[in-house]
């Protein structure tokens, strides 16, 4: 079989053709020339054979990479992995994935609790004692600015633990259509350095500082199930399964 027209592309041009990087005239030649197409296929087959045998042949196993990441490898082995990482984007990406993965798990509410318990922080779970469907009880009033914007039909919920009371109200977000805002008031606790965090599916959604009167607000929330935590230097209070409905109502969800 002869080449259909000279000059016949050399192997270098055919390699570029296989990679999709050939000049247009080479591209067009190979498409019209059975001989050069066959040569390109043979070259591609050799490359595939080599790739199949060599691809990532020198990469450390995932377990070795993991132990490297955790600082558990002996120094010589760790040095070899460090050298490998400078030239292998695949392993560098896998290490990055591992770091992100363990960070994601560590960021979960459960893991952060583990840390805080170890640090001697009091971790408490507040219970719903008053709210829609529970019946009226004396509850602290939300700050005037908050109460003034609260819809009449959206009654706040009152949570309590260890003499600490938290009132949670929900109202449509003035800034964003279809979003809701939480207005909260905490009493029975020194509000200085207390931070409110809202979590959803183990992901931190929003953070707000509690002011000196115990008020806090979090806006831009989509309807859904959340967990609220209020954390100060020596205390952490959780309100679990806080459901925010599309009509701006907060209520205690069922435990899953």
């Amino acid at each position: 079989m002869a080449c259909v027209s000279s000059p016949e592309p050399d192997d270098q041009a055919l390699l570029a053709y296989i990679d999709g990087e050939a000049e247009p005239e080479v591209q067009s030649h190979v498409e019209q020339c059975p001989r050069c197409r066959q040569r390109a296929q043979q070259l591609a087959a050799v490359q595939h054979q080599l790739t199949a045998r060599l691809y990532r042949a020198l990469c450390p196993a995932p377990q070795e990479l993991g132990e490297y990441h955790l600082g558990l490898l002996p120094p010589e082995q760790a040095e070899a992995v460090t050298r490998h990482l400078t030239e292998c984007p695949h392993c560098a990406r896998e290490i990055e994935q591992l770091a992100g993965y363990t960070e994601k798990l560590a960021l979960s509410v459960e893991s952060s609790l583990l840390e805080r318990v170890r640090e001697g922080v009091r971790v408490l779970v507040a219970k719903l004692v008053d709210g829609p469907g529970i019946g009226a009880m004396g509850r602290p009033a939300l700050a005037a600015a908050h109460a003034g914007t609260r819809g009449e039909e959206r009654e706040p919920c009152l949570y309590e633990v260890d003499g600490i009371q938290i009132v949670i109200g929900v109202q449509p977000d003035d800034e964003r259509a279809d979003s809701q805002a939480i207005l909260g008031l905490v009493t029975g606790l020194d509000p200085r350095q207390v931070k409110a965090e809202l979590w959803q599916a183990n992901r931190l959604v929003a953070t707000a500082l509690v002011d000196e009167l115990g008020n806090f607000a979090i806006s831009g929330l989509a309807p859904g199930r959340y967990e609220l935590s209020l954390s100060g230097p020596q205390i952490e209070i959780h309100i679990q399964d806080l459901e925010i409905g599309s009509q701006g109502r907060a209520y205690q969800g069922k435990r899953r």
Partner: protein
Amino acid sequence: MSHAAKQASLCLEDVAQRCALETDRFFRHQDYDPRYCFELLRRAIADRCQRAWDFVYTQYQPLVTSWVRRHAAFASCHEEAQYFVNRAFEKMWAALTPAKFDRFPDLKSLLRYLQMCVHSAILDAARATERAALLARPDAGIALADPEATSVENQALDRVQRQAFWKEISARLNNDQERQVMYGSFVLGMKPRALYEGSPDMFRDVTEVYRVKENVLARLRRDDELARLLLRDA
């Protein structure tokens, strides 16, 4: 009696029960004591107690399942979560010898290692899937690996064989440029343009990368011994 001495004096069933109780308190966001679970893991790993390990598995299997489901690559592996849970526990059991246990000062560090084992088990599968796709190409000249070939032991054996093959290739390379081109092209799977952009000091332009690749491939294709190696592994 110190707390550690008290824990050591407890029977295995009591340690496991306290571990379950404390874990339950932890998930209810109540104050809890992690030392019983640490003691359970210590007996399993440092004392190599199989019964303790069975308790560890029972206790942590639901948590590990949740970790598997939250891994970004889990969905694309097309395996049941339970498969990776078992692989992760196997890896931890195999890798953490009594001598290594001293490097884990608390429960958190042990659970972090277990998380790493989950990641490692999922990556084994992800790498095997990627490689099976390469092997499956009709022009690769290699039969598609059967499912057994993706087991951890077979992967390790396969890695050794492939490293030996790279040594054969390396022995046929004449200089750093050739090594860079072959390593980048076939071990890392990079195209010549990316190779040039990654090492602009080594090559004048992309054409030079293609020229080096062409020369080496021509030499390897003329090499009878290499051809025999390729046929033997096929």
